[in-house]
């Protein structure tokens, strides 16, 4: 285990040396006019459409994506090629590709960035992916608040259509594809793929019971694939350079590059394209990425993959409980399970400085999930509300010591008992905050007045690393 990790360290150091050559999605992001078709094409844009439609079969494209090891970039990390291969292909039924651009996971803003500055990367990916799946109509479901991005995409689609990359008989290959942008209405739940499908059909965003999975019965009961914006955009370099080349980037089963949305108390928040496997410490402190914690403060905690994933105290963010360097990869971030690890999720990386109150932030997240629960399943509908209320009274000085275990109990009863993962997503932040920062919750109960006036500061786990048995309590 340790040996493998040392090796991984070496690989990531080598990869750092050649990092500049490795930007796949954001390579040309600073080129003036890259949002227009002409400039985008001057920088190699739409090559993958030519290659895929003229020289590859749909199945060969699916195989290439499988070879690349690309995993869903929306949060779940499910292998994209495998998801594509599940798509049913019954005779006489349309198949649909729907792009999930309902980016709403707190801490995540990479898709907004990509669509704003380099919209053709998404359009190009949509054409190649739709061809691979045999879709003749595809939709990009964009959250309604992103009206400027919707305009940008509609303009990009019109440009692509004018140039013969969309519409009838694309590039003379006989393949027809129409691509439409669909606005959402402001609902976090529509990022869940079956809720998104319901919403696309003009209904409330209530997730469906699975099975049947969308691959069998999705939009209008037709086989459907739903993929995140970044996933679709990543198909472009995979087709251009081959899946094998893509798989060389990254570490282990975390292949390729990933867009990380960095926010919170950082010197340089923003979107960064990293090779999967960069150490968390380097990501936070190096000038190439976030440039350290803002205002010269110390790091208290990290939420590494969007608000749903477990929060980790500073020490466990930088190192696993075995003392190994924590890397920005699916495997390393989840090393130690939920006892001492977290998840890469959507790559929404939120850093908390020493002045932040964990109880207040947990209450904030709980309110978010309560607000966004669709209300179908009672554990989530009621439980998220209870958690919000209990956390509110802890934060505002009316908490009882028994409230802390009550929260753990409610979180446990939501988790796994709902149709969709929103229940889990609501339970994990609360459970993990108490797991790692229980002393801070207790302090809110014992010192309610003080807790209103000042912050608790760094938790006891900040430094040094806890012992294994302390974490696994």
């Amino acid at each position: 285990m340790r040996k493998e990790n040392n090796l991984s360290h070496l690989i990531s150091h080598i990869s750092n040396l050649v990092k500049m050559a490795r930007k796949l999605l954001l390579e040309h992001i600073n080129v003036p006019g890259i949002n227009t078709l002409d400039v985008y094409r001057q920088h190699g844009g739409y090559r993958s459409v030519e290659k895929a439609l003229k020289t590859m079969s749909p199945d060969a494209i699916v195989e290439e994506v499988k070879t690349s090891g690309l995993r869903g970039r929306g949060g779940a990390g499910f292998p994209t090629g495998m998801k594509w291969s599940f798509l049913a292909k019954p005779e006489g039924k349309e198949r649909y590709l729907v792009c999930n651009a309902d980016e709403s996971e707190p801490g995540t803003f990479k898709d907004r960035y990509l669509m704003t500055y380099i919209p053709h990367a998404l359009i190009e990916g949509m054409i190649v992916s739709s061809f691979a799946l045999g879709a003749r109509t595809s939709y990009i479901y964009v959250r309604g608040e992103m009206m400027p991005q919707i305009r940008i995409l509609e303009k990009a689609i019109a440009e692509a259509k004018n140039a013969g990359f969309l519409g009838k008989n694309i590039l003379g290959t006989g393949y027809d594809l129409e691509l439409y942008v669909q606005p959402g209405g402001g609902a976090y739940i529509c990022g869940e793929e079956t809720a998104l499908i319901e919403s696309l059909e003009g209904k409330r965003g209530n997730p469906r019971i699975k099975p049947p999975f969308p691959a069998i019965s999705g939009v209008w009961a037709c086989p459907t694939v739903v993929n995140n914006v970044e996933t679709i955009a990543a198909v472009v370099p995979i087709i251009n350079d081959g899946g094998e080349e893509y798989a060389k980037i990254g570490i282990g089963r975390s292949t390729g590059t990933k867009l990380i949305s960095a926010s919170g108390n950082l010197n340089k928040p923003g979107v960064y394209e990293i090779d999967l496997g960069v150490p968390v410490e380097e990501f936070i402190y190096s000038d190439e990425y976030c440039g350290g914690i803002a205002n010269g403060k110390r790091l208290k905690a990290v939420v590494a993959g969007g608000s749903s994933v477990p929060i980790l105290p500073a020490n466990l963010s930088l190192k696993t409980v075995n003392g190994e360097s924590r890397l920005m990869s699916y495997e390393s971030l989840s090393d130690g399970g939920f006892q001492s690890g977290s998840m890469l999720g959507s790559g929404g990386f939120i850093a908390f400085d020493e002045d932040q109150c964990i109880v207040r932030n947990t209450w904030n997240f709980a309110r978010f999930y309560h607000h966004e629960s669709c209300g179908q399943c009672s554990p989530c509908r009621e439980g998220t509300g209870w958690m919000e209320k209990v956390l509110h009274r802890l934060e505002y000085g009316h908490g009882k010591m028994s409230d802390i275990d009550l929260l753990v109990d409610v979180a446990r009863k939501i988790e796994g008992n709902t149709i969709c993962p929103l229940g889990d997503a609501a339970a994990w932040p609360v459970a993990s905050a108490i797991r790692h920062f229980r002393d801070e919750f207790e302090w809110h109960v014992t010192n309610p007045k003080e807790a209103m006036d000042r912050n608790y500061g760094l938790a006891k786990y900040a430094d040094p690393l806890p012992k294994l048995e302390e974490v696994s309590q």
Partner: protein
Amino acid sequence: MLSVTEQKDIEFSSSLISQFDEIVTRYPAGKQKAGLLPILHLVQAEYGWVSPEAMDKVAAYLEIKPIEVYEVATFYTMFFLRPQGKFVLEVCRTGPCCLVGAEKIMDHIEKTLGVKEGEVTADGKFSWRGVECLAACGMAPVLQIGPEYTFYENLTEQSVDQLINDLKNKI
């Protein structure tokens, strides 16, 4: 408490209807209900809110039951079910924005406009509300203003004052 505000004698303009007509071509025959969300956005952009009467008209246009429109309009947070100020300032209030001062920005807006969250200023020009994550956490704190959802990033009390002044002059 549910108070229903009326919007009598509402008639969709022909340009609005022609936009509806384009929207429903995006879906297979018989699946025109999928156009509901984009159409509600257009209605709200036109009138500033979505009235029961407007919803009934949308239902008639899409050949669906009125309840199918009501249940959607009340589910999604973007649709206003009563009249708002001409400019609605929607401030993100979720975790990452709060780490860098969104709560102070909301307090400042409340003080500057002199109305509570969800209320309209006496001159009918402004209202404001906190909304959940707008997916711009790296540029926090942020707010947006419909109907085009123009975005204002890295807010400070000064930049908010400037914005409100600019909007006052714009009317």
